[in-house]
């Protein structure tokens, strides 16, 4: 007023702003607020969507977005507080149902409110960094309902109680459960995890801790595993029915930890029902269950594998070192094969062919087979037995299976060269005595050995087969060129190539004159067709068929060794012969002679000779007669030599020595090969390289390698470094 009085002019800024009805915003909001009430009260049919949408649009357009947004927040909050009270009032069972019903109502209302406020949602909210309407509705529900003090704990306890009831066998309303859990997940994974999952896992851990303790006290291992598996499957099923799929791994982890990991050692070692018992009794189902459960926990399979390995090694060790078992090599190897079959089928049926278990099995076998130095010999004997008689009437496929199994054992051997040595000997015997059952089986095994050991070894074996074949042809040629030999004794010579056959000290003996004449004829025939060769007689390896008639006129055909033949032929011209006379006449080495006399004079049923004095042993002073009283129900009598099938101690030593001798050039070759490529190498590395190279064949002894190195230095293949004496240099 004072201004007016002074009549002062004031310049007012030009206002071009259009003044809207000052109550415009309040009026419009009232309309919208009313609509929100009606929507929550299920009374929306009277609302005009177009009008509400346009009103909300206009509020945002006229810069009342903030008023609209805050109005929405407070209106919705007050509604949710009402709803919260209604849910709190629900008693007992109806609590969850009421919550679910109100949640559905809220969702529907939220969608409609968002429809009205769509323009605000699209323009005002992003540019002002506000929470979009739908998310806002969920957040308000979370804060006013799910996390309100009177509902939060009650909800959690109700849910956990339902889960517990289901675990104890009650039937619960899974559909309702799923809806409520879905609500928690819709409110965000954090709400689900914080308000439910975390507690659910804790309670489950406690539940299974108690239960597993109860089970382990009263169940045996197999039964316990069944229960654990059942519980695990129940939890997985629970997740698919009403929990978040991401919870599966978490809850199964809880069950695995409480029911398996915490009791694993006790279960595996449980008396009378643990892993070892399952293995012994071939309980495939229980073993499979244990495998599947332990696979789920850290170190589970490792534990099983270790227990299995140590059990296997223990039983294997007993098997190969039991002196009783050593008496019968065939039985010995058969037991090994049976053991292998047993574990193969366990790994196949229960451990789903787990590679790590297969490796453990292989390692265990390699470990205990080599505990017994005679394993190579026994395996060869097993083959010998099978090829002599064991394969009669067995189909070709079965033969292959047996041979494959033998090869598998062969692979476990460290000293493969020892096996080879024995195999060669046994094969030679089989061939020379014509005892081999199946040529195909023999050849099939040689092919297998070839793939394992290479051409080098089998070429000699193949040479043996060739010798047999050529000998047949030679004999045919011999008799064709000497038709006059139709009468009299028949000579069959097998010409063996030196080197291909296991050499034995050739102890020649004096053959009877009839035979030696025949032998000379053959010698001249053979050397006539093959110039430049040398023949020497291996009388210790031959055999003979003789016709003999005894006192009562009964005739027999005797199948004897060459030595025995020589002895018997002497009695064509004498009644009585002393040991000394026989020895002089035949010049058979004493041990051999004693053995062959023993077999003819001391074995019942085969005693074509009589000895004075009567005793089991042959003495230097003994005298021998033809046993006129000899009788046998067979026309053909086979007089075996008393030969130990297994090698005797000195023979064993001898074989051993020959093996060692054969190894020397191999070790030297390996050293030279390595040094040639490396030029300079220190002692330790050289030893380890040589060992690595020869591992395939045998495990060389470091001292032996050292000796070989010394020998090579002497022969100027290598020299020691002048400065560092540990270094070797290769001399080209």
């Amino acid at each position: 007023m004072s201004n007016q009085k002074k009549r002062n002019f004031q310049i007012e800024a030009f206002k071009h702003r259009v003044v809207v009805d000052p109550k415009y915003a309040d009026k419009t909001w009232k309309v919208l607020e009313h609509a929100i009430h009606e929507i929550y009260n299920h009374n929306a049919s009277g609302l005009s969507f177009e009008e509400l949408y346009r009103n909300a649009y206009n509020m945002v357009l006229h810069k009342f977005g903030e008023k609209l947004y805050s109005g929405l927040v407070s209106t919705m909050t007050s509604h949710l507080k009402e709803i919260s009270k209604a849910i709190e009032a629900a008693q007992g069972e109806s609590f969850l149902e009421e919550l679910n019903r109100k949640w559905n109502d809220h969702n529907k209302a939220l969608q409609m409110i968002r429809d009205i406020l769509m323009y605000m949602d699209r323009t005002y909210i992003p540019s002002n960094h506000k929470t979009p309407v739908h998310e806002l509705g969920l957040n308000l529900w979370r804060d006013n309902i799910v996390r309100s003090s009177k509902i939060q704990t009650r909800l959690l306890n109700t849910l956990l109680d339902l889960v517990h009831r289901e675990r104890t066998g009650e039937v619960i309303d899974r559909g309702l459960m799923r809806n409520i859990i879905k609500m928690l997940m819709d409110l965000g994974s954090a709400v689900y995890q914080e308000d439910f999952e975390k507690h659910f896992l804790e309670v489950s851990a406690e539940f299974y801790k108690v239960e597993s303790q109860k089970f382990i006290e009263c169940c045996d291992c197999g039964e316990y595993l069944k229960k654990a598996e059942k519980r695990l499957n129940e939890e997985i099923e629970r997740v698919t029915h009403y929990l978040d799929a991401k919870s599966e791994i978490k809850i199964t982890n809880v069950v695995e930890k409480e029911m398996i990991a915490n009791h694993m050692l006790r279960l595996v070692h449980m008396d009378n029902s643990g892993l070892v018992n399952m293995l012994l009794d071939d309980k495939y189902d229980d073993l499979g269950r244990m495998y599947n459960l332990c696979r789920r926990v850290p170190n589970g399979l490792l534990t099983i594998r270790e227990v299995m390995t140590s059990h296997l090694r223990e039983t294997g060790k007993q098997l190969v070192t039991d002196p009783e078992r050593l008496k019968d090599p065939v039985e010995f190897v058969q037991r090994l094969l049976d053991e292998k079959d047993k574990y193969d089928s366990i790994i196949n049926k229960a451990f789903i062919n787990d590679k790590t278990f297969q490796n453990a099995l292989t390692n265990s076998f390699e470990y205990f087979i080599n505990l017994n130095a005679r394993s190579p010999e026994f395996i060869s004997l097993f083959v010998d037995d099978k090829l002599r008689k064991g394969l009669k009437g067995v189909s070709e496929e079965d033969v292959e299976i047996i041979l494959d199994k033998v090869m598998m054992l062969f692979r476990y051997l460290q000293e493969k060269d020892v096996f080879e040595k024995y195999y060669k000997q046994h094969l030679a015997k089989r061939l020379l005595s014509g005892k081999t059952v199946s040529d195909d089986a023999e050849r099939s095994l040689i092919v297998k050995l070839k793939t394992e050991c290479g051409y080098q070894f089998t070429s000699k074996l193949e040479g043996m087969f060739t010798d047999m074949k050529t000998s047949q042809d030679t004999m045919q040629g011999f008799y064709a060129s000497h038709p006059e030999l139709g009468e009299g004794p028949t000579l069959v010579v097998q010409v063996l190539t030196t080197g291909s056959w296991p050499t034995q000290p050739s102890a020649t003996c004096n053959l009877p004159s009839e035979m030696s004449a025949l032998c000379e004829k053959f010698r001249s025939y053979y050397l006539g067709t093959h110039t430049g060769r040398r023949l020497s007689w291996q009388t210790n390896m031959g055999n003979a068929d003789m016709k003999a008639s005894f006192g009562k006129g009964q005739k027999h055909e005797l199948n004897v060794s060459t030595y025995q033949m020589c002895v018997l032929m002497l009695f064509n011209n004498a009644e009585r012969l002393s040991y000394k006379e026989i020895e002089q006449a035949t010049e058979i080495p004493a041990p051999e002679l004693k053995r062959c006399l023993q077999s003819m004079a001391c074995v019942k049923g085969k005693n074509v000779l009589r000895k004075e004095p009567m005793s089991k042993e042959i003495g230097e002073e003994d005298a021998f007669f033809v046993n006129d009283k000899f009788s046998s129900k067979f026309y053909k009598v086979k007089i075996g030599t008393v030969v130990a099938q297994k090698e005797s101690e000195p023979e064993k030593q001898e074989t051993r020595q020959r093996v060692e001798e054969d190894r020397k050039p191999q070790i030297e070759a390996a050293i030279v090969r390595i040094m040639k490529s490396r030029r300079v190498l220190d002692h330790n590395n050289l030893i380890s390289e040589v060992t690595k190279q020869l591992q395939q064949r045998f495990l060389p002894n470091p001292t032996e390698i050292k000796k070989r190195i010394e020998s090579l230095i002497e022969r100027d293949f290598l020299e020691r470094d002048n400065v560092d004496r540990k270094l070797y240099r290769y001399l080209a």
Partner: protein
Amino acid sequence: MIVAAPAAKDRVKFNVGGRIFETTSTTLANAGRDSFFGPLFDENWDLKDSSQSVGGGEFFIDRNPDCFAVVLDLLRTGDLNIPPNIPERLLYREASFYGVLDHVRSAKWGPFDGNRLRYSKSISGTAPGDGTAIRAAPDGGCAVAHGSIVHVYDWMLSEEHPPLTLDHQRVNDVIWVDPENLAVSACERLGRGDGGLGLFNKTSGRLRFKFQVTHDNQVKSFTAGALATAQNPNHRIFSSCKGRSNEYGIGVWDQFTGKQVDFFYESPGWSLGDADRLQWLEERNCLLVATLFPRKDNCYISLLDFRTKDMVWSWSDVGAPMTVDERRVRDGIAMEGNNAICVVNEYEDLGFMDLRMNGGAIRWSSRSRLIMKGRMPDDEPCYPKLALHDGGQLFSSMNDCISVFCGPDMVMTSRLRRGYGGSICDFSIGGDRLFALHSEENVFDVWECPPPPVI
């Protein structure tokens, strides 16, 4: 009495501002649930046969009928046809009311192809200084930097958002981090901590945060130069940085948190902190940094591998003999698919370098300079600039022209020219549009492809 055919069930009648429209719910469904038309068919609202459509069975909408006709047509055909009597602004407003603005945008112009571009319009600004940079936004809008201010336009171009400034310091570069946010690099002001690099919201124009450079746990002020972003991996933003003392190099930050995650210091005899251009090479996981004449006396182009802190590829013309025609590299861009870096000299000759060979030479393409000779305008020339589009098309600006190069040998296939506003000082491709900023009249042109042909 006429019985309605079964198909009539689908029919909807609107009364828009007094005019009757009839359409089908199928047509309206094209607008999507998230539009004004969505709730009309939602069972919650139950609008189809409620009281709101009684009185002739019409649904009343209190809006402009002319615009509704255009919108309805858009929903029917997917084509946008604006009659001359309807201002674009009015139509955009109505489309925004119905929630179909995105439909309008995608119908307005077609997918980008350098050889189909048509001149659309020119926008004149009010800024005083020379244009520095123009950057197309992913949605078809753009940001234009003049001196110390950045003007931001949305795709409708009719409305300008609040302009941005970073402490009113001279702006060096602008880059869109996402459709809503952009980063602005500016010169520092001595001792005040002003300038540097800031992230702005497009709509509100508010500075959200500044990207800081820390050396030895001390925050340093710096001048931010060229910018680049990498979405893969980890949403990084890169900037060339010049600090007070020895802090020249490339800074790396997280786009969302603004935290500095790395700094690549330049080595003696090499230039990184003054770089004219940065480019992220996704396949190689490397950053291309190019510092060029005349900012420096020599040109340096290198690829940085931040995982190994290694310069994995580099080229420089230091010590190279000057040829008679003196071809200096004025811009360079990497074409990962071709394993090449393309460079351009002041005569708009293109040259190529092999990315797989370190220390190779430039192989200049034999394209004759005759086209350009004698056409050099009298006024101050602008240096050539290069840009690349996803489809393998290469663009180069020279004077008032933009040339388009295609094919394995990069032959010129199109030229874009509009003789107003003088030389083109910068251009940018994005949101299926090409923007060209002129140096003189403070004006920029918009080029876009027409929608696909009717048949």
